[in-house]
């Protein structure tokens, strides 16, 4: 299973963009109002650095996935525990995105269809893609969906020029102050992208020397979109309204009215978001099941994929009955400890150890 650079770009890009469009803008706007875009800019910078660090780690261990190289770096027991934390994160991402997608469908379009029907359809599709072709199939899909997805999402930002008022983001900084801006940043950046998937995906890159460029570009494109989307949202709705929107990007599509004729285009965007969510979920499911198979030593990762899907389905169903479990976005433990640990602290530690090791190796050879 190999992924070309072009495919890698789309894989990373789509899976980042789908989260950017879903969570961070709203979390940032809630706290820092018209300075939400500063939060997203800062968050993007943090995430770009995190991605870069992770890529350094991957390059140093390019012939292994996270599960295997972490054993070399930290020892078997500690390595396995840390990897389990990553598994937990990917599983949470899976349930978060799938639940968000399905509940959104229920809210805006399919009022009477039972949630479980939509959920099973979505999960079946994802699991089937993973089962049939693994990362090869997913990256092919990404390659096809990607250009449409990205172009149309970028186009969306320029569809309501008549409603935009650039002055709505003024005054910059003064109203919220740095405490609110930083707070907004620290909450929202966790949901900006998920750089940890690279730790697994990089192993499958065909050309390891140039893959990192594709990954960085993929992340940067989605970050750029995130910043533009936040600005456009603020231009159109102003800070007070933006702070209360739960699905801001969807609300933006509802305002579009081109020459009083092209309206209600949200029905056109919803399937597109479904495509994006499909790629993101498939990537997560693949790396989770492949990682689990390496972690347990059980070779048949396709079976693990099906089992994971069953677990995932039951977890989403269970969590939808328990409101406290299903709304963990602003959980201080997750935001203050869990995400920073897996996105920033852990990659830094791995990078340090791996650098020291390689230097040691170079010395011993020399």
């Amino acid at each position, binding site marked *: 299973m190999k992924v070309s650079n072009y495919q890698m770009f789309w894989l990373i890009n789509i899976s980042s963009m789908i989260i950017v469009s879903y969570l961070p803008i709203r979390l940032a706007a809630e706290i820092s109002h018209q300075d939400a875009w500063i939060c997203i800019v800062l968050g993007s910078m943090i995430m770009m650095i995190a991605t870069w660090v992770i890529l350094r780690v991957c390059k140093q261990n390019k012939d292994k996935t996270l599960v295997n190289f972490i054993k070399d770096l930290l020892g078997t027991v500690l390595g396995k525990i840390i990897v389990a934390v990553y598994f937990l994160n990917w599983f949470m991402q899976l349930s978060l995105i799938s639940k968000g997608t399905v509940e959104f469908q229920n*809210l*805006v*379009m*399919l*009022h*009477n*269809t039972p949630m479980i*029907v*939509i959920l099973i*359809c979505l999960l*079946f*599709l994802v699991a089937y893609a993973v089962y049939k072709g693994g990362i090869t199939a997913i990256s092919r899909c990404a390659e096809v969906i990607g250009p449409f997805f990205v172009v149309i999402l970028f186009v969306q930002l320029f569809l309501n020029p*008549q*409603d935009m008022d650039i*002055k709505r983001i*003024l*005054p910059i900084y*003064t*109203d919220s102050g740095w405490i609110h801006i930083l707070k907004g940043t620290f909450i929202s950046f966790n949901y900006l992208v998920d750089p940890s998937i690279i730790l697994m995906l990089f192993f499958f890159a065909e050309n390891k020397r140039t893959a990192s460029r594709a990954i960085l570009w993929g992340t940067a494109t989605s970050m750029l979109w995130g910043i533009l989307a936040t600005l456009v949202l603020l231009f159109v*709705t*102003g800070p*007070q*309204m933006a702070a*209360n*929107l739960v699905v801001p990007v*969807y609300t933006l599509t*509802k*305002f579009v*009215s081109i020459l*009083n004729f092209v*309206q*209600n285009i949200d029905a056109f965007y919803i399937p597109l978001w479904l495509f994006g969510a499909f790629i993101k979920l498939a990537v997560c499911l693949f790396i989770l099941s492949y990682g689990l198979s390496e972690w347990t030593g059980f070779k048949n990762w396709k079976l693990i994929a099906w089992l994971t899907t069953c677990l995932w389905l039951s977890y989403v169903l269970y969590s939808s009955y328990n409101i406290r479990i299903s709304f963990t976005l602003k959980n201080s433990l997750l935001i203050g400890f869990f995400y920073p640990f897996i996105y920033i602290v852990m990659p830094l530690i791995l990078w340090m150890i791996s650098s020291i090791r390689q230097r040691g190796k170079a010395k011993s050879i020399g």
Partner: protein
Amino acid sequence: MTRSVLLTIVFLLLVLSSSGCTDFVEPNQLAFVIGTGVDHVEDGTMEVSQQIVIPSQLSGQAESSGNSNSFVVMSAKGRGIFEASQKIQKKMSRRVMTSHRILNAISEEFLIKNDGRKLFDKLNRDPANNLRDITVLIKGRSAKDYLMLKHPIERLSSISSGKELQINGLRRFSTRQFILDSLSEGIRPLLPVLEIKDFKENDKKTDPIAVLSGFAALNKKLKVKGILDVDESSAVIWMAGKGSFHAITIPWKNGKGILAFRLTHLQRRIRSVHGNDLKRIILTVKAQAYLIENTTSLDMSEVDNMIEVQKYVNEEIQKEFQITMNKVQQWETDVIGIGEHLHRKYPYWWKAQKDDWDDNFKKVQVTVKSNIRLKSVGTSGGQIK
């Protein structure tokens, strides 16, 4: 064999459900709401009226607007909008769909006796709403009466009002703008006011129709503080930076004849007289003027006359706008958005002001200046006598 049968079943299921067939409502099962009205009911609830088009009447030729109705108004009472709408739904054979609505009408009485802000939550929370529609205030009568009116040209009263605002360059009065203005600290909303008046269509027929009779200046709590007439509101809209077109007719100095202009490219500038001392503000209105009518004895092909006319127009506008501005200031509601402008320009100063801006707005000394440039005298130089 079993494998292919199984696959076929799975795919059929997927195709049916993924295309949303389980939850699909055919267009002929939908009732399209074009206008919604909200009225006050004495027991503290509200009455919601939906103006719904009858599609079978729409497909016919123009004669249908004459005799038969092309719409129906359904109304129901409820404690909230949703309760009332559900009661309407119960009476309907079709699913009520509000995504294509173009107008929300609120009666004046409703705003006087209720907190209008409670309407916003439903508008913003329920995805069945689009905030592209316009919100208007119905003066004197109920919103339900308004929705029931026929219009001689358009099929529905709400379509006619929507077009009326649109064609007269008043595009910035959508519900979204209304909500934004009322949420914002430094600007108060302006609502278009419709009044129902008798209109003589021809020798035989006189029908009531709704016409735009001005704009209402609301305060933070959405109470009407005053209603501007058509000329005043045109001035206020321009000063608020929301206008795109203005027409003005002024009598000439000696009282003989008039001059009429079409003004385009409307702009406004706000600045303080001395830097950070924000007690005295200068508001400058800018526009390009096109002379449309001239019944004075002035020969407009003369440059001296052009300069004099331009100077005189500026003086007159300044005078007229200053009076309107003073009137708005007396109402203690900043519909012009001076507060919001100063908020963006002097954010630290604003922090001390925002809590009682309505009161402070009255104390600010606002001077209106005018900077109109005469662009063209039309296609006739001197007069044709």
